[in-house]
């Protein structure tokens, strides 16, 4: 099976059912299917070939969803880039995967104009929100996205299928310890397997209405759309959780049954006055990305007493690892559960040997949901995808330290590397440090995660200045906000006279973090 069939099969079964709701627009499965088919034909006409990459640089919108399925229908590979990504990183990603087409919004395009000469692979740009009614601005090589979606001369039926299920369907860029983002390669089989396992344990049915506020560049957000279409349900797409009451009202109005959260959202939700609101339709709430504090779990259980609360854990490289069955949450609130259906998980020591219950080790994942590797990074791939027990098979070494109890429930202990998890997104300290070093006056920099009630971990930059240099926290944040996505801008900046080093003379993030903790106490 291929991912675009999630849409095609549901459109065949229930063409008049509402598939997608975003702001004031409501689309049926038939409308989604037909518009995706037109855009797919337009992509093919632009020369997009099987297996080529098409980047989607849009906020949560109808167009973003249509683009994902259109790219798949064209036989190509999609990647969704967070709309707050700055132009340097976007250029890097487009070149790294040699994207041949970009689908975006005219507002997001402004910064990219000057980069066109540096993007030799990019042949076409589809832009939403073009003011003119013309189909194509030949000078700027722009195609109007809205006009393409409604073009009467493009076929309503999908293009001929070219892919098989071990072909790539998507790249999801994630933070790497080297500081450069890595493209996680997901095949159709990877995505179909993960979506099948997840919708099985969530007991999803066609009547489900899922409300998603998470960005589609984040796999947790992306899968809400994919899974809603797979089960033939309805997806309510919100641009963000910025205005919580707008979202709360939608939960009620649309009779939402499934609401995915990350810890930041649950923290905000629990600060709101929800008296007078009733959510009789809500059937389940999920959490992943970072552990939910036990206090939040208890409070969420009070706010939503009738709702099943799923505590889950995963990483982009295999989408999801585990879930805690809702009937266990009051018994073992700190566990993230067991492996999901059709997947095996175990814990190994440094020599790759399985450890006994209670012993801390690295979590290993085995299943069809495990990625194909990192895009054009064979060495990085070999570090995490290692031989399993069947000939030729690869299993995923997660880099996450876990222990398992006697009954097989998993408990997260920490990371093997220095990756920070902030607002549910993985953040590489190296990527931020590289940006800090590009600021005049910075001599040394180390970026660490510090505990934060709202963000899980907040990002802190610890800096030493060159002699005579004068920088404030504001200067540092301003510089970072021009080069990094919003969630990567340090919340705290500390200036020190020197940074602790390891014996080999390298700055030690661990010792910097220990110093920061002492200072806080």
């Amino acid at each position, binding site marked *: 099976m291929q991912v675009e069939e999630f849409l095609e099969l549901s459109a065949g079964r229930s063409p008049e059912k509402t598939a997608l709701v975003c702001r004031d627009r409501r689309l049926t499965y038939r409308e989604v299917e037909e518009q995706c088919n037109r855009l797919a034909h337009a992509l093919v006409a632009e020369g997009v070939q099987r297996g080529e990459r098409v980047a989607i640089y849009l*906020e949560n919108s109808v167009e973003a969803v249509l683009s994902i399925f259109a790219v798949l229908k064209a036989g190509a590979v999609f990647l969704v880039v967070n*709309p*707050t990504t700055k132009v340097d990183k976007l250029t890097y990603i487009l070149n790294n995967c040699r994207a041949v087409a970009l689908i975006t919004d005219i*507002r997001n395009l402004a910064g990219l104009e000057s980069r066109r000469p540096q993007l030799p692979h990019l042949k076409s740009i589809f832009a939403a929100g073009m003011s003119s009614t013309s189909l194509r601005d030949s000078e700027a090589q722009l195609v109007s996205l809205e006009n393409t979606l409604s073009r009467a001369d493009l076929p309503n039926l999908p293009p001929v299928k070219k892919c098989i299920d071990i072909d790539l369907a998507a790249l999801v860029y994630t933070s790497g310890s080297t500081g450069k983002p890595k493209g996680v390669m997901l095949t159709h089989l990877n995505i179909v397997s993960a979506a099948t396992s997840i919708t099985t344990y969530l007991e999803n049915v066609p009547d489900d209405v899922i409300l998603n506020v998470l960005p589609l560049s984040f796999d947790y957000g992306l899968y809400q759309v994919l899974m809603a279409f797979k089960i033939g349900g309805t997806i309510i797409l919100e*641009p*963000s*959780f*910025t*205005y*919580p*009451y*707008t979202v709360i009202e939608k939960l009620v109005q649309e009779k939402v049954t499934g609401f995915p959260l990350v810890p*930041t*959202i649950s923290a*905000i939700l629990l*600060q*709101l*006055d929800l008296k007078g609101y009733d959510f009789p339709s809500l059937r389940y709430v999920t959490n992943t990305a970072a552990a939910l504090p036990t206090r939040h779990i208890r409070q969420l259980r009070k706010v939503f007493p009738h709702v099943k609360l799923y505590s889950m854990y995963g990483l982009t490289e295999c989408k999801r690892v585990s879930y805690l069955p809702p009937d266990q949450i009051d018994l073992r609130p700190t566990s993230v559960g067991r492996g999901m259906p059709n997947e095996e998980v175990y814990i190994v020591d440094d020599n790759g040997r399985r450890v006994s219950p209670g012993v801390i080790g690295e979590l290993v994942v085995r299943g069809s949901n495990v990625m194909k590797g990192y895009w054009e990074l064979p060495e990085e791939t070999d570090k995490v995808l290692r031989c399993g027990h069947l000939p030729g098979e690869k299993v995923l070494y997660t880099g996450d330290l876990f222990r398992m109890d006697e009954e097989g429930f998993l408990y997260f202990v920490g990371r093997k590397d220095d990756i920070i998890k902030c607002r549910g997104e993985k953040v590489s300290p190296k990527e931020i440090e590289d940006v800090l070093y590009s600021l005049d006056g910075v001599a040394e920099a180390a970026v660490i995660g510090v505990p934060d009630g*709202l*963000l899980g971990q907040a990002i802190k930059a610890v800096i030493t200045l060159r002699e005579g240099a004068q920088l404030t926290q*504001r*200067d540092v*944040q*301003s510089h*970072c*906000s*021009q080069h990094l996505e*919003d969630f990567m*801008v340090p919340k705290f900046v500390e200036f020190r006279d020197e940074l602790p080093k390891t014996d080999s003379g390298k700055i030690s993030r661990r010792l910097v973090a220990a110093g920061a903790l002492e200072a806080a106490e």
Partner: protein
Amino acid sequence: MQNIEQELRQFVVDNFLFGQPNGHLSSSDSFLDKGIIDSTGVLELVVFLEETYRIKIQDRELVPDNLDSINNLVRFLERKLQHTS
């Protein structure tokens, strides 16, 4: 109200644009569409409004119509301040 608008703009620029020159933020720009503010930012904004203008903002007033641009904020504040005076 001229003052209020300036104060609000200063707060938004200082806290959400980290002091960057604000030439590109017009009074009608949606903070949401521009990616200027997130849900943690909204909570910071509310604390600022309550402390600076000595008003009480109900949770239910945290909607884009009231908060999502400099213009919306000014209108919202005018209304709130009239009610208190």
